[in-house]
């Protein structure tokens, strides 16, 4: 019996991942129209980012309100490559993207050139956010900036990043962003079969990310990360530098978010500052909060749900759907602080005791009052 329980605890989550994998990779392509499948692909990209946010925020306690930056780094890296591929398909190997001719003088900035290479682009999608996150995180964590400071700082970063993109029309397409991709690593993007292939790549990437965090959460590092979240300074006196612990999670999360952004570009056909700015970043967080930030599957499922909800609500109530979105934030955070993913266990727990729960249930031991004195 006990063994069975242990087995469930270890392998149960994998079962959940398998269910998601089957739903996304087998069921969805079979039942959805190409358009809906493509929509789902977009939510999957947000879900990949959500897994990263769950890692940084749910497990690591770092509420990054500027994940849009990493989403954008991946998205723009990919978009630059696709833009160049599209240009080369029509204008030969030295062709430059159309917008540089329209808004600029038709010359391409030097840092665009390497993105003609697909391999370089793939490396950049992983390395650029990793390096940016490492430098940024190193600076921030070593200086022990955390909590609300960290959240607001990163939000400002997202604003600055989006503003920078808008202000550099000739280099990044500005407010318009980058779009009109025709070719994806040699495959024609106007072909429905190829669009489905991009979807499959995204869904697979999501499953891979989930497996990675699954292993991470059950590893000793996962425990150390939670320990760092709960009592950062105390970790120091166990012989670990908490900054390093957080840095690892932060960088890993940034890479996942970047991968989400990179796949977002070919799936939606566009990446623009409004996909990476403060509002976009907050919507990324919304999904994670909805699903349950500290859970394994919560962030991914939550992000899928928010994506689906946005589409459905805005199709059904095109003029009023913002109300629903606003209410969603309020209701979930107010009544399900641990996310909807925790509801089942809450209900079960209630039934088990048949006791009225006290009005102010401590959220987690320790946040409950008279606890920490400096």
């Amino acid at each position, binding site marked *: 019996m006990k063994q069975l329980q242990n087995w469930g605890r270890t392998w149960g989550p994998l079962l959940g991942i398998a269910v998601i994998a089957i739903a996304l990779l087998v069921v969805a392509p079979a039942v959805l129209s190409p358009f809906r499948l493509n929509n789902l692909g977009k939510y999957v990209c947000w879900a990949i980012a959500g897994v990263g946010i769950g890692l940084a925020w749910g497990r690591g306690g770092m509420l990054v309100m500027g994940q849009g930056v990493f989403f954008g780094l991946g998205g723009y890296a990919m978009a630059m490559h696709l833009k160049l591929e599209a240009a080369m398909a029509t204008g030969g190997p030295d062709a430059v993207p159309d917008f540089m001719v329209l808004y600029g003088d038709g010359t391409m900035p030097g840092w665009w050139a390497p993105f003609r290479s697909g391999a370089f682009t793939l490396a950049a999608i992983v390395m650029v956010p990793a390096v940016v996150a490492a430098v940024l995180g190193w600076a921030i964590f070593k200086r022990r900036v955390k909590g609300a400071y960290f959240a607001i700082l990163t939000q400002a970063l997202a604003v600055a990043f989006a503003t920078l993109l808008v202000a550099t029309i000739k280099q990044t397409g500005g407010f318009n962003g980058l779009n009109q991709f025709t070719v994806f690593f040699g495959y024609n993007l106007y072909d429905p079969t190829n669009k489905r292939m991009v979807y499959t790549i995204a869904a697979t990437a999501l499953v891979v990310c989930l497996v990675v965090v699954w292993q991470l959460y059950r590893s000793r590092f996962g*425990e150390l990360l*939670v320990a760092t979240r709960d009592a950062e300074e105390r970790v120091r006196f166990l012989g670990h530098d908490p900054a390093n612990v957080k840095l690892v999670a932060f960088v890993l999360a940034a890479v996942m978010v970047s991968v989400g952004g990179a796949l977002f570009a070919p799936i939606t056909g566009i990446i623009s500052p409004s996909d990476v700015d403060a509002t976009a970043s907050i919507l990324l967080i919304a999904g994670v909060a909805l699903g349950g930030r500290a859970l394994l599957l919560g962030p991914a499922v939550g992000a899928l749900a928010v994506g689906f909800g946005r589409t459905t609500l805005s199709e059904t109530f095109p003029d009023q759907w913002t109300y629903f979105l606003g209410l969603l934030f309020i209701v979930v955070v107010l009544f399900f602080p641990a996310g909807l993913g925790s509801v089942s266990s809450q209900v079960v727990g209630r039934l088990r005791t048949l006791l009225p729960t006290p009005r102010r249930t401590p959220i987690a031991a320790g946040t409950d009052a008279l606890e*920490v004195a400096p």
Partner: protein
Amino acid sequence: MNDDYLEIRGLSVDFDGFKAIDDVDLTLLQGRLHFLIGPNGAGKTTLVDAVTGLVPATGLVRYRNQDLLRTKPHRIVRAGIGRTFQTATVFEGLSVLQNLDIAGGVHRRAWRMGLARRGTPSYVAEALETIGLAGLRDRPAGVLAHGQKQWLEIGMLLVQDARVMLLDEPVAGMSAEEREQTGDLLRRIGRERTIVVIEHDMDFVRSYADVVTVMHAGKVLAEGTVAAIQADPRVQQVYLGRTAEEADHA
């Protein structure tokens, strides 16, 4: 053995002009239970803070030829110096077992951090027994009572295999029996370790101290056996008060 002592020379801690520690010399030898007592605000906690890198200090603190004042806190821990906190601090969201396991991670290689724990490592199981929390191993540490947390902290030092343990009022809030258990535990593990205990409970000090150092206003006021200290009029005046003799017979 020769190197295994903590040497403090000319240690000073200055808070914007206020000298919380003022030129303190101390040598802490292995195998003896060393007690640090003194009035509130004498500088006992600050001394431990300075040794473990929590506050900047001047002077010299040496352990196994390593200058601790120039070492980062987590490196000090890796050098074998462990401490507990006056207000017990454990990882509230993690179970007792996980708390201990994490503490045991200091000496693991970095890449192994990516692997999951399998079963209960023997040293963790041992520590669980020693601190008497085996029954609570799967409870989140946040729900432990005050004293249980303090035991957990000691347990964390045990799995870390700290060679020097600096314990800041480890038995505060424990009942008489629990103090006794803790005292016996310290005596047992103290044979091959250097242990410093900060404490105000004179009954406890009397029962377990091998050496006592009295601090006052940032300086060492007196040092010696319990009896010698209790007889010292200066110590009586600033610390023990007149109840000292009465308490002797309580």
